């Protein structure tokens, strides 16, 4: 599903070159639940941006679902993000002043996909247990509920992978547990999930853990005893 080979990302800060990623190789198969861990500055955000097609590698190759995305234009990347990737962010990132339903519809709107748009968005909201909050605006929802809407938005296009960047970072422990269990349940239903986190508590739910330090993968292996979600 994800084939990253020899990916390097170099930023230029004035005269200084910063190597955020150094020749990283990573393969993720369909149906996996991978946690990418690392301290701040380890390069995990850069790796997430590349996996999420928000950024392109300086060198190396990256194929997503069989498509080489390393050399695509901005608009082509937008199309890939729309069709192949569902994002869940730390700060929820819902569009303010738009109902939960409209937020979930948004990726379908940009896809130009009008067929049963409303029904599909409602089904996604139902899948995260929020069908009764469809007409609420983000400001009328709790943090946990907002993140559920974000998960529904990530699901609605049936993407190849779901990319969750610190999805529980802004939530209290109870809501955190709800969200990670929801994500875990989605994985058991067959969804490929890449989870970026620095919390061991959260990473325990993943089946495979990749650790980054200074732009290099230092460990990559199955979780010895993944926590099974209660639901």
């Amino acid at each position: 599903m994800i084939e990253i080979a020899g990916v390097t990302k170099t930023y230029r800060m004035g005269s200084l070159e910063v190597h955020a990623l150094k020749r990283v190789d990573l393969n993720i198969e369909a149906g996996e639940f991978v946690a990418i861990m690392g301290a701040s500055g380890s390069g995990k955000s850069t790796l997430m941006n590349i996996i999420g097609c928000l950024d392109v590698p300086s060198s190396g190759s990256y194929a997503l679902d069989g498509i080489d995305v390393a050399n695509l234009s901005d608009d082509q990347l937008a199309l890939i993000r729309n069709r192949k990737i569902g994002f869940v962010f730390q700060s929820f990132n819902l569009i303010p002043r738009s109902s939960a339903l409209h937020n979930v519809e948004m990726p379908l709107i940009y896809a130009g996909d009008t067929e049963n748009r409303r029904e599909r968005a409602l089904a996604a909201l139902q899948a995260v247990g929020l069908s009764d909050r469809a007409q609420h605006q983000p400001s009328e929802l709790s943090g946990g509920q907002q993140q559920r809407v974000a998960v529904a938005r990530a699901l609605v296009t049936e993407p190849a992978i779901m990319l969750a960047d610190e999805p529980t970072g802004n939530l209290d422990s109870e809501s955190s547990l709800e969200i990670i269990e929801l994500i875990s349940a989605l994985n058991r239903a067959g969804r490929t999930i890449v989870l970026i986190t620095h919390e061991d508590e959260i990473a325990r739910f993943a089946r495979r853990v990749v650790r980054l330090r200074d732009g290099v993968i230092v460990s990559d292996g199955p979780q010895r005893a993944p926590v099974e979600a209660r639901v």
Partner: protein
Amino acid sequence: MNLVEALRIAISGLNANRLRSGLTVLGIMIGVGAVVLLVAVGNGASVQVTSQIESLGSNLIYVYPSSPTAAGGVAQGFGAGQTLTMTDVQNLGDQTQAPDIAAAIPIATAPGRMTHGSQNWFAPVSGSTQDFAAVRNYSLQVGQFFTQSQVNSSARVVVVGQTVVDNLFGGSAQSALNQTIEIQRQPFTVIGVFVAKGSQGLGNQDNVAVIPITAAWNYLTGGRGKNISQIVIQATSASTITLATQQATQILLTDHKISDPAQADFTTQSQQDILSSYGQITQTLTVLLGSVAAIALVVGGIGIMNIMLVTVTERTREIGIRKAIGARRTDILLQFLIESMFLSGVGGILGIVVGWGGSFWLPSLKLSVLSSLGTPVVSIASVLLAFGVSVGIGLFFGIYPANRAAALNPIEALRYE
């Protein structure tokens, strides 16, 4: 992404900042309103001047006497010559010589200090022939115009305008009829009163007194001979004015035995010439007023640009989110362009309403400064143009902010606090 969705997003964005959107719309509204109103004022002035000139009669050509430049290059004053004669008038009115001339009348002017009992008044007195009323487009409310036989017999009769009646007879045309008034101490009987034309600006068309030209020569302009100060020619239709002018010129050159048209001792001027020279003045006025208003419109456009730049900065994060979930450059560009065009379009519509309303409200103020400009005339073309320009301004001043939004890097936009 379809337009309905883009419009929905734009409206919800504008709705979130109602005061700000309202003030921006106000800027465009004032600009468009000013364009519509001021162009209407200019058009009104133009219509007023045109109708005044046309009230003098239709399809007219004026012939004035002039002297060829004397030896030494000294030209005499305009109208100083006495070169026009009744023979000229008769020949010009001859259908066989000039098929495109409907009628020709001589005008001899005399100062008109007139009295009736203890009342005094001053009105220009014109001596002319029986065709005067038809050519100059006057009709009579009471009595009748003088006849050819009255012209031949130098009858002491006069036909006056409403202003003269107002000042000598207290306004009643009926009571003026058959009364005797004295013009320069010469008695004349009032045999008719013209229907008021009611126009102003180019001289009062109702402050007139017309007498047979022969009577003018005999009793009023004594000592100056059979002076004709101008001949007024009426062409058969608007399309034959040029032909009629040519025929008149030819007849007068032949009559006066002048072979070189450059040496002509008369000048012709058609109503079209007068209209076009006044038309240039009013057009300049309209352009001037319009450009002042256009400046207001541009200022409004800069207001839109300013507010759109603020909006783009404020919504950087939202732009990042939209890009992350698949919005392309054009989607973002379109969203902000529609937003700015919506602002300017609404401002444009309100401005048209205000400008149109203002054009009705302005005359009701009865300001003396404005009375000479006539009633503003809103032209549909200026309304459509103003609306088009306002939307265009939204597009033009929206492009830079929208482009800035569309070019945002999604990673940095998402990180923006």
